[in-house]
């Protein structure tokens, strides 16, 4: 019986609930010192003086680093970095190299002491004076001075600029609206943390909370001028990523502190620093225009997206989903980006699609209402059967089935077209829905598999489990490919000493790493089988592969299971204590987020004929349905139930997959109802400094979330047939909720979050 797909418990669940899974900050070292960064209290300007005397004299202080005494690191150089594999650096700003301040909260000094409390207490004693300059903090007023980016993830950023204007203006059926979303912060439960351990002057080990050990190694090696082989990054457990645990350069601060003190150094990012130093999703202003023919077929879609950035090429790509959803003869997608004195924006769960689907899917709801068509029927009517931009067929697309299943499970037919029709006591009740979508990426990945004579199997790859279930699903894949139970499998991940795997970003781990693990296990199995065939003492001696099946740790003859040979017996007779195989899966489209050079035998990700990214468009789809209860007197919105139906290819573990979608929906619910990082215009600081001010949903905000999977394997993405699942869950959620609020109250709120003041 195959275990893959089964909703088994996490293999690391017991470690986590008993507190024995070791996270980065828990790798305490003998003689360890503690580093606490000091942050700027202006948003733009130069540091004129540092008075470090009081801090240096403070109890337990070992060193105070500023730009005046910190060692010089390699400077930002995008071309050279690209060559060295230094991608996903959070911010183009190497700390403590000069006196320039680019945003409020920037790291400007580092205090290292015997204890954390001593370091933090001394950090408060540092006196800094600045030459303050006028900062840019207001998006609306800075946008005209901004720029139009040319490239977005290597593709043309601006699509058909200006070309929809005449058509939409002349159309009798159209809507044009502006939607806004707020700056958000990731706030995974575990803050970023690094323990830096030097061995001599040129060998470094980092225990780091990272979504990708390989990339963290490349970044550390690059800026510290070390050979990548001399840097080891270890990250077995990560307490949530959501895009913020790419690599931020506090890791080099920890390493610098280690160089100066000649001791292992721990640096943990505080919750307040998570608002300023490790990225954010920047606010957006999105203008959407739709026009349709009298029957409700879209004739044009325009999506102008405005946002801000700083210290990175990245900007929130809100038009991504608009390029994939709905058929329309003409489509215009443009970007305008301002530069603000705020820390760098970065990838945050479904970057682009999350805020983008709020705008597009709200606009679709408005247009449907305008056309007096049910919003779900309106989407079906405008469904894009092939990729509307590239014109390629989708590798697989069951969006229409998602709509159908969702409508049925949710009870969509009970929805009234006119708002304000359903009441219960003081509550107005409304239904809303939206489409979900996220691209299905895959990258190169490598894996090694070992089996001992005792039947203990180890799967090794430098992938990450950021709470998603990677340990568990890899064990399931390996167990099935060997015909053994999951308990036999040990998965080792999160260590650069293991074969390279891509960063856990872009929902790619499952699609990328499983084909490599599967190929490695299949190679091992084949080697073992050939050993049996050539072994005169084996009952399977002289047989051929197509005559053989395997189960319960043995090979047997198809049709007669009594003619068999166990893995252990084969190994024992042939004096093999251990057998090993390694494989790299490499998509035809290139290494993507993975390593460009393969350490093991390369296997294609899928068969040649269907693995061509130029032939197919790879995307996942889904449908989100929300019911809300609105207390109209007080403006409070309660999401009372939610149905999410997802077409994400094959499901590797129904339980961990469901958890991913539930987590995504909750993430979307937070963005819809409460998450907002607010900046003070005078100071440029985020005033939502902690989780008391920056609200994320609590249990009482979260309803029962009903998740369904279409579950049909994608025949083209890989030998596994699974697409990524980490991000799609959030997409469409805020629009579904806002659309439900309209259905309940007749009020269209076009600005997130939907706080109660907007409904009064």
């Amino acid at each position, binding site marked *: 019986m195959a275990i893959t797909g089964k909703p088994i418990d996490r293999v690391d669940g017991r470690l986590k609930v008993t507190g024995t899974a070791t996270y980065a900050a828990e790798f305490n070292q003998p003689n360890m010192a503690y580093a606490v960064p000091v942050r700027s*209290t202006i948003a733009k300007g130069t540091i004129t003086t540092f008075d470090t005397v009081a801090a240096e004299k403070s109890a337990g202080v070992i060193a105070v680093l500023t730009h005046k005494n910190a060692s010089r690191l390699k400077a930002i150089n995008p071309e050279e970095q690209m060559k060295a594999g230094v991608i996903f650096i959070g911010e183009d700003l190497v700390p403590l190299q000069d006196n320039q301040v680019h945003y409020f909260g920037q790291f400007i000094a580092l205090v290292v002491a015997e204890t954390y409390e001593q370091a933090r207490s001394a950090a408060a004693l540092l006196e800094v004076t600045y030459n303050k300059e006028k900062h840019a903090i207001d998006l609306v007023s800075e946008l005209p001075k901004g720029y139009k980016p040319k490239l977005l993830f290597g593709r043309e950023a601006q699509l058909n600029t200006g070309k929809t204007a005449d058509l939409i203006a002349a159309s009798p059926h159209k809507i044009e609206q502006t939607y806004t979303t707020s700056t958000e912060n990731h706030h995974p439960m575990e803050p970023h943390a690094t323990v830096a351990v030097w061995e001599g002057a040129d060998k470094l080990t980092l225990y780091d909370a990272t979504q990708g050990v390989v990339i963290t190694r490349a970044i550390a090696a690059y800026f510290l001028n070390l050979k990548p082989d001399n840097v080891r990054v270890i990250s077995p457990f990560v307490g949530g990523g959501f895009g913020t645990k790419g690599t931020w350069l506090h890791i080099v601060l920890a390493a610098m502190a280690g160089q100066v003190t000649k001791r292992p150094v721990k640096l943990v990012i505080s919750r307040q620093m998570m608002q300023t130093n490790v990225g954010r999703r920047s606010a957006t202003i999105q203008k959407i225009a739709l026009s349709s023919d009298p029957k409700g077929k879209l004739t044009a879609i325009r999506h102008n997206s405005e946002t801000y950035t700083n210290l990175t090429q990245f900007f929130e790509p809100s038009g991504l989903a608009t390029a994939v959803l709905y058929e329309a003869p003409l489509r215009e997608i443009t970007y305008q980006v301002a530069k603000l004195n705020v820390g760098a924006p970065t990838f945050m769960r479904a970057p682009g699609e999350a805020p983008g689907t709020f705008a597009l899917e709200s606009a679709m709801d408005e247009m449907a209402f305008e056309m007096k068509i049910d919003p779900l029927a309106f989407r079906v009517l405008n469904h894009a059967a092939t990729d509307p931009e590239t014109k390629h067929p989708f590798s697989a697309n069951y969006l229409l089935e998602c709509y159908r299943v969702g409508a049925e499970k949710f009870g969509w037919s009970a929805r009234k077209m006119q708002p304000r029709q359903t009441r219960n006591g003081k509550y107005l009740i409304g239904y809303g829905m939206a489409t979900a979508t996220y691209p299905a990426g895959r990258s190169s990945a490598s894996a090694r598999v070992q089996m001992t004579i005792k039947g203990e199997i180890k799967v090794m790859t430098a992938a990450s489990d950021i709470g998603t279930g990677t340990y568990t699903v890899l064990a399931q894949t390996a167990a099935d490919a060997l015909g053994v139970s999951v308990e036999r499998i040990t998965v080792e991940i999160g260590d650069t000493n293991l074969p390279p795997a891509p960063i856990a970003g872009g929902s790619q781990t499952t699609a990328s790493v499983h084909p490599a693990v599967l190929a490695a296990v299949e190679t091992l199995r084949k080697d073992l089988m050939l050993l049996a065939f050539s072994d005169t003492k084996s009952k399977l001696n002289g047989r051929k592969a197509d005559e053989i099946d395997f189960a319960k740790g043995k090979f047997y003859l198809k049709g007669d299971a009594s003619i068999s040979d166990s893995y252990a017996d084969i190994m024992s007779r042939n004096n093999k204590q251990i057998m090993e195989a390694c494989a790299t899966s490499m998509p035809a489209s290139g290494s993507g987020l993975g390593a460009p050079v393969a350490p093991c035998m390369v296997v294609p990700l899928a068969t040649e004929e269907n693995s061509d990214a130029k032939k197919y468009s790879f995307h996942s789809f889904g449908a989100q349905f929300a019911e809300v209860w609105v207390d109209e007197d007080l403006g409070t919105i309660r999401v009372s139930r939610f149905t999410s139906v997802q077409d994400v290819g094959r499901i590797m573990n129904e339980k961990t997959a469901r958890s991913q979608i539930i987590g995504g929906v909750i993430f979307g619910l937070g963005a819809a*109802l409460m998450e907002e990082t607010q*900046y003070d215009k005078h100071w440029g600081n985020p005033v939502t400094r902690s989780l008391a001010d920056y609200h994320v*949903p609590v249990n*009482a*905000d979260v309803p029962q979330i009903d998740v369904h999977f279409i579950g049909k394997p994608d025949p083209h993405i890989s030998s596994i047939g699974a697409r990524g699942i980490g991000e799609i869950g959030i997409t469409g959620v805020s629009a579904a909720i806002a659309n439900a609020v309209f259905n309940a109250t007749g009020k269209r709120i076009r600005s997130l979050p939907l706080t109660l*003041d907007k409904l009064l």
Partner: protein
Amino acid sequence: MRPFKFSSTKDPNSAIKMLMDNTNAKFLAGGTNILDLMKEDVERPDELIDITSLHFTQIKTISEGTNKGGISIGGLSKNTDTANDPVIRRDFPLLTQAILAGASAQIRNMATNGGNLNQRTRCSYFYDTAMPCNKREPGTGCGAREGINRMHAIFGWTNNCVAVHPSDMCVALVALDAVVIVIGTDGKSRAIPFADYHRLPGDTPHKDNNLVPGELITSVEIPKNNFAGNSYYLKVRDRASYAFALVSVAAALEINGNQIKQVRIAMGGVAHKPWRAIEAEKFLLGKSASNENFKQAAEAEMQHAKPLEHNKFKVELGKRAIIRALTQAMNGGTNS
């Protein structure tokens, strides 16, 4: 957090003496606020005097004096124990509701009643030492006055401070005419009417309350009342739980036939102190309990509101919250 000395005592008078001997010392009870403030470098005591071993932990019916028949809750009783006390649940359900609307179960398990009174504002300019704040550092200005002030005051503020008192419990206590009992350096008790305990900011926003140095809360007394059947605490916030109030209303009615014999209304999230809605009370006293009268009462109170740039919505929300809380109270005080 800066280094500090940890002291402890079982005797109230020696606790007070220890406090008076060191001007940089502070009392430590549940620690749910002071420790956060120390970690943020807002409070910088060099000594914490642990008073959790003092015996002010009783919850009991008052057997003599002006508040006879009322209830006395210990200054060091836990919020959880207070909220769940059977007599309080039966006779003072407004207090139970208000306490349970605040913080989280874990925090209420640690937090004491005296500490609840003395907790400090959650204004983020107060918490951020990089920002100006007259409450934290007199004379530096008020960052929130021209900054982000969505959570801030609409009553009683001055240009020196627009912060609000964060407590839910205190809103119920001011509505119920509670009295704060303290002992001072002379070892004698003093009774402070709850409405006079906390202060408006004026030009001394660094002073949250009218305690004189060395005073220690021993208990809070709530006089007997006839509100148990018709009281309600409404808290309106940005999420369903574990958030400070945008506006909260404690409403208590004593109704005879349909006539309002007694009425108490107080608001949270609107001022530097728990705000007793005197104007609304005056309007309602002796009138019939009706939606129209509730509406006019709410108008009477809220016409004096002076909102800031980002909290204009609190005026309309305040009105609606008063009406809702009074309606719920009239209907028996249960959540429907």
